[in-house]
């Protein structure tokens, strides 16, 4: 999520001054993403330069307030509806590690996968603990944690899929008398 | 909720109060289950009701199918028959009896001849509300006759062309007909009734008394002699024993039937509940509690089914009574049911139902909870293992039935149950054979048959129930058919209904079968009709034959010209006899009248001379060892006898023929005795009347069929019909029960685009398969049991009722197929998933 669009979103609720923007930003993202005031002001300056916000002084205070321009509102709307770039695959380190492990002699690929799986699940446990301790009203925190959990979950699923694919291709390391009964057992469970 | 784990072990025992509460909870749940699954319960309940009702009706039938001695004895213990030696002696005889036997009730009798016929009608005087005779007398309409009045049976009205209200001159006395009567114990009895004392000169007197048969020996009579004493003593005991045996048989078969149906029903129920039972097992219900759910169900269904079945059975019994009376030919007291057995049967039905629910309950409770939770039935046992046990059991049952000698109760009961269970265990083999044959059948048929094979427990029990239903009706049909060929005198009557015999003199060739004590002295033909009489009879026969567009055939008897003529009993006619001892005197008794095997007569019965290999040919199978009495004193000769089934089996027809060669060898001559006239069709009442009139005008008499009795045939048709109906009903219900379990499959089939026809095919195939196997197994089972039962005279069974058996084996599956197709519509709740 870009700070730029987060600021636009916050200003869509009404004119705000810089410090308040930072406070609300942290609050909305569940304090998961700490941000400093400098980052906020840099962003605001760029936005003003691009004509998306305009600044003015409040009548009753020394602070400079910012408000959304029509152009800014249009940009915010456009951004909300634009799908994120999911087309090009990210260069995932985990994928690379598994691919490499396949060809390194003497490495138990299943064990490698399990190590990663365990680590990811441990991470998920920690996130879940965050979610568990969060108050019911803190919906934004829950959403952010959910996003993280779903992402990690997908990693686990990928690991599971990789595991079973590899098991099917390579002959299983543990000697099994007959693979057919195992399948039947699976059906019974 | 904040409990800490206590280090002590949890107490795992349960107190009495606790278990009572637990039982209540289980009971509540089973009640709810009953309510939720009432549709399925309804099927089981109906099956049970039908079975109990059938047993109740069956018990009523066996107890009432025989009328016993009440036909002629009423409620008395002894009947003493006296023949008055001459007119005017009756009053003295009656006085003597009343003095010696104060309770004796008198019945006066004389004969009213039917003009032109060998038959006669009894004129009887019976008191209106006789002490003992009241069960023998029923007034159908009108009233009891007073002085100068008479009441008659319907048959008398038609024989003499009378009507009620008319004045009828009987034996020289004019009497007004005031009512129609009958003997409720034998509807076929023909008689005219007057008040006591209204018969001027009774030829015979009967005294009914409660005293034992020995009292007669103390009575000194003048003016008459005692010719017969009938006592219910021995025959009653024998009849009671026979009846008890019949009741036992019906009850055993009925209860086995009930048991099988219950097992089928409860196996399906248990299957349906497998998951629920697994669930409460997982929650921590004990095995006993799990069993209790099924047992509670079994008890509830058993109690309701038994009560309902008894009520339905009684209602059916009352409703069927008139039809049943018509079939058996005597009135039946609706209340004369073996009540104790009926209620005992109902009680046992409850027990059977409980036992039937216990079996699957036990299987479920023994199953690991995890297996129960999957809701899948355990893998079927291989069919051949059952088949082995089944054959063993069936063989055991067979042997037991053979050993029972038709009387040892324990052997009979265990024999029947073993045979039935054996058949039950053989059923899966049949199902599997069918499933194996279905390889290339359309998918719906294949699926239906494979389902039957897969769910052996329920298809096996359903099949066994259907088989038993078929078996019961097959047994009745086979037995009735055998009885009909066997029991010649009773079933065949004196003559076929399309024949007239013009007797030159007297009539009849032998005594009607009946209690031996009644056996009159052997009737004997007079020494010889005159040539004129023979010519007259020949002319009458020719007239009758002409009116019927046919010809007459002369009947000749072998006659001994040397026979003495002194004692008036009439000499000369040879007869077939058997040595006998009577009242301490040894002698011989008349068995049959042989006729001469003339070429015309042999031709008439389609017998060629080359078929004849013995001196005597006969249709009777009971003449072995009999001798020929040549008509002269002590003239007994050994004879060779050949059984020829082409000869008639009627008592008055020539059922035994002597070859002319044999007659010549014994020095016997030929004597004409009568003429047979046979019409192409049954004689009408008008034709009989005409024949009688022709004979009467010539001073001779004719004999025609004297009964219209074909009750066994009727009973057989009835039994087959009812049996097929019950089998069909049982089949329909069991098929419903089985198919109700496969609604899931139906849904899948529908989703896969199966048409309505496919779904109908499923039901129709299931029904037809069960019907076919049930028909085969049932009939086979019936034969096995009957062969064992009649082991000592298997020839008894040598005339199977092909038509009825064909109906069972072929028509039943066809009806099931059609029924399954018509009624095998998709259930309306197809979309609904099972609740649990």
């Amino acid at each position, binding site marked *: 999520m870009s700070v730029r669009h987060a600021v636009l979103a916050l200003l869509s609720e009404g004119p705000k001054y810089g410090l308040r923007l930072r406070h609300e930003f942290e609050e909305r993202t569940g304090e998961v993403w700490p941000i400093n005031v400098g980052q906020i002001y840099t962003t605001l300056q760029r936005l003003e330069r691009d004509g998306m916000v305009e600044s003015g002084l409040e009548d009753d205070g020394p602070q400079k307030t910012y408000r959304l321009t029509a152009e800014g509102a249009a940009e915010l709307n456009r951004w909300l509806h634009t799908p994120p770039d999911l087309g090009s695959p990210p260069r995932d380190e985990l994928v690379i590690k598994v691919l490499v492990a396949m060809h390194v002699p003497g490495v138990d690929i299943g064990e490698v996968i399990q190590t990663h799986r365990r680590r990811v699940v441990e991470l998920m446990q920690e996130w879940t603990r965050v979610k568990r301790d969060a108050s019911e009203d803190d919906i934004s925190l829950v959403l952010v944690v959910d996003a993280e959990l779903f992402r990690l979950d997908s990693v686990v*699923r990928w690991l599971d899929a990789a595991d079973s694919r590899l098991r099917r291709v390579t002959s299983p390391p543990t000697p099994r008398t007959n693979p057919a009964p195992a399948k039947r057992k699976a059906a019974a469970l | 909720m904040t409990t800490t784990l206590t280090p002590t072990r949890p107490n795992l025992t349960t107190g009495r109060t*606790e278990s009572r509460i637990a039982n209540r909870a289980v009971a*509540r*749940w089973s009640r709810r289950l009953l309510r939720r699954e009432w549709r399925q319960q309804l099927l089981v309940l109906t099956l049970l009701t039908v079975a109990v009702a059938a047993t109740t009706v069956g018990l009523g039938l066996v107890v009432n199918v025989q009328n016993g001695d009440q036909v002629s004895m009423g409620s008395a213990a002894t009947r003493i028959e006296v023949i008055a030696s001459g007119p005017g002696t009756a009053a003295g005889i009656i006085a003597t009896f009343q003095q010696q036997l104060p309770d004796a009730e008198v019945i006066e009798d004389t004969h009213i001849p039917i003009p032109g016929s060998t038959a006669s009608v009894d004129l009887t005087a019976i008191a209106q509300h006789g002490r003992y005779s009241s069960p023998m007398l029923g007034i159908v309409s009108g009233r009891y006759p007073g002085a100068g009045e008479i009441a008659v049976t319907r048959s008398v009205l038609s024989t003499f062309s009378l009507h009620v209200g008319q004045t009828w001159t009987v034996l020289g006395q004019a009497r007004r007909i005031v009512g129609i009567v009958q003997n409720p114990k034998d509807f076929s009895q023909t008689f005219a009734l007057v008040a006591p004392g209204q018969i001027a000169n009774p030829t015979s007197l009967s005294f009914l008394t409660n005293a034992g048969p020995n009292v007669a020996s103390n009575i000194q009579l003048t003016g008459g002699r005692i010719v017969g004493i009938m006592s219910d003593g021995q025959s009653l005991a024998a009849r009671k024993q026979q009846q008890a045996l019949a009741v036992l048989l019906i009850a055993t078969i009925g209860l086995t039937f009930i048991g099988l149906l219950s097992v089928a029903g409860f196996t399906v129920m248990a299957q349906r509940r497998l*998951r629920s039972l697994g669930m409460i097992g997982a929650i921590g219900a004990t095995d006993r509690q799990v069993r209790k759910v099924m047992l509670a169900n079994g008890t509830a269904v058993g109690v309701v089914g038994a009560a309902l079945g008894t009520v339905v059975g009684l209602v059916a019994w009352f409703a069927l009574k008139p039809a049943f009376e018509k079939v058996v030919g005597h009135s039946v007291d609706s209340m004369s049911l073996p009540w104790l057995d009926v209620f005992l049967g109902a009680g046992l039905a409850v027990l059977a139902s409980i036992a039937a629910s216990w079996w699957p309950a036990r299987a479920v409770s023994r199953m690991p909870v995890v297996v129960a939770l999957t809701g899948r039935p355990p893998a079927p046992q291989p069919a051949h293992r059952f088949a082995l046990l089944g054959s063993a059991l069936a063989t055991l049952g067979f042997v037991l039935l053979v050993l029972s000698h038709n009387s040892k109760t324990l052997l009979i009961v265990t024999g029947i149950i073993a045979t039935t269970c054996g058949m039950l265990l053989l059923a899966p083999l049949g199902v599997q054979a069918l499933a194996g044959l279905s390889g290339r059948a359309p998918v719906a048929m294949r699926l239906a048959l494979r389902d039957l094979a897969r769910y052996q427990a329920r298809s096996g029990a359903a099949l066994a129930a259907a088989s038993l239903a078929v078996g019961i009706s097959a047994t009745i049909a086979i037995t009735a058919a055998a009885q009909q060929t066997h029991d010649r005198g009773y079933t065949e009557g004196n003559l076929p209904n399309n024949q007239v015999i013009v007797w030159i003199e007297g009539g009849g060739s032998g005594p009607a079968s009946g209690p031996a004590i009644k056996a009159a002295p052997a009737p004997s033909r007079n020494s010889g009709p005159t040539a004129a009489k023979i010519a007259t009879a020949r002319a009458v026969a020719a007239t009758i034959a002409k009116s019927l567009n046919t010809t007459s055939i002369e009947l000749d008897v072998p006659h001994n010209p040397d026979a003495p003529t002194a004692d008036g009993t009439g000499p000369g006619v040879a007869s077939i006899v058997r040595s006998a001892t009577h009242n301490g005197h040894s002698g011989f008794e008349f068995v049959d009248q042989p006729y001469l095997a003339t070429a015309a007569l042999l031709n008439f019965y389609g017998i060629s001379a080359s078929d004849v290999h013995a001196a005597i040919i006969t249709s009777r199978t009971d003449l072995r060892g009999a001798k020929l009495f040549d008509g002269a004193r002590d003239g007994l000769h050994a004879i060779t006898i050949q059984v020829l089934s082409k000869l008639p089996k009627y008592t008055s027809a020539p059922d035994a023929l002597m070859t002319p060669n044999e007659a010549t060898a014994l020095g016997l001559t030929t004597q004409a005795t009568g003429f047979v006239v046979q019409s192409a069709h049954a004689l009408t009442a008008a034709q009989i009347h005409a024949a009688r009139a022709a004979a009467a005008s010539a001073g001779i008499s004719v004999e025609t069929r004297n009964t219209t009795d074909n009750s066994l045939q009727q009973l057989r048709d009835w039994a087959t019909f009812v049996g097929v109906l019950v089998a069909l009903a049982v089949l329909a219900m069991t098929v419903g029960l089985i198919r109700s379990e496969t609604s899931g499959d139906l849904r899948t089939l529908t989703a896969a685009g199966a048409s309505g026809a496919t779904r109908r095919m499923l039901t129709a195939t299931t029904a037809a398969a069960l019907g076919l196997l049930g028909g085969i197994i049932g009939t086979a089972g019936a034969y096995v049991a009957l062969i064992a039962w009649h082991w000592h005279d298997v020839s008894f069974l040598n005339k199977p009722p092909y038509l009825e058996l064909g109906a069972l084996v072929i028509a039943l599956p066809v009806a099931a197929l059609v029924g399954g197709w018509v009624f095998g519509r998709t259930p309306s709740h197809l979309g609904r998933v099972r609740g649990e």
Partner: protein
Amino acid sequence: MSALELIGVTKVYGRGAGEVQALREVTLAVEPGELVAVMGPSGSGKSTLLTIAGTLESASSGDVLIGGMPVSKLSRNQQAAMRRRAIGYVFQDFNLLAGLTAAENVALPLELDGVSTRTARKAALEVLDRLSLSARAEHFPDDLSGGERQRVAIARAVVGERRLLLADEPSGALDSVNGEAVMRLVRSTCQGGVAGVVVTHDAQLASWADRVVFLRDGRMVDQTAPPAGPESLLQADAAR
């Protein structure tokens, strides 16, 4: 003492060529108050592990101790009593008795155990209230939504003084939000001192546990490390 202890448990199905080893030498201890998740692919033996722990099946070898008591030494009836009193079992497909209302379903284990109907009902209503189901107490399972049914099933599993809560894919048939609600419930139950074992193949659900055990081909291959504080997570992420 552990609430549940599996010692070298092996389970073999079938015989001869068709023999299948569902569990091999599994050793696992679950402490009171601890929630353990068992993860593994289909056929890894995780459901078998649960049914053996729940005394619904017996182990081929090895021993199961519940509250320190070896299950193999108990009769079938004593095992049933154990299921009524000490073990709560939650199934993937709810397994409520269709003929009984929600409250009656929850009260059933108590009643089977001989608790008077009134007391059992009171306890059942209390639990249902805690799970915000008091309005549904008199409804039959057929009239409840999937989430509600599973909550009733959990209520039935925790009613009374249970020491062990076993759940087999308790949210398998539910959407993720309902599934999470179920796991929250299981979690809070365990915090009250009950030992819990949840079998699942869903990492998100497993992550509610204190400890995740990995099963593969009937063998316990791995388990997660004891939990670190949530702060570490934030720091680690902030540093990224």
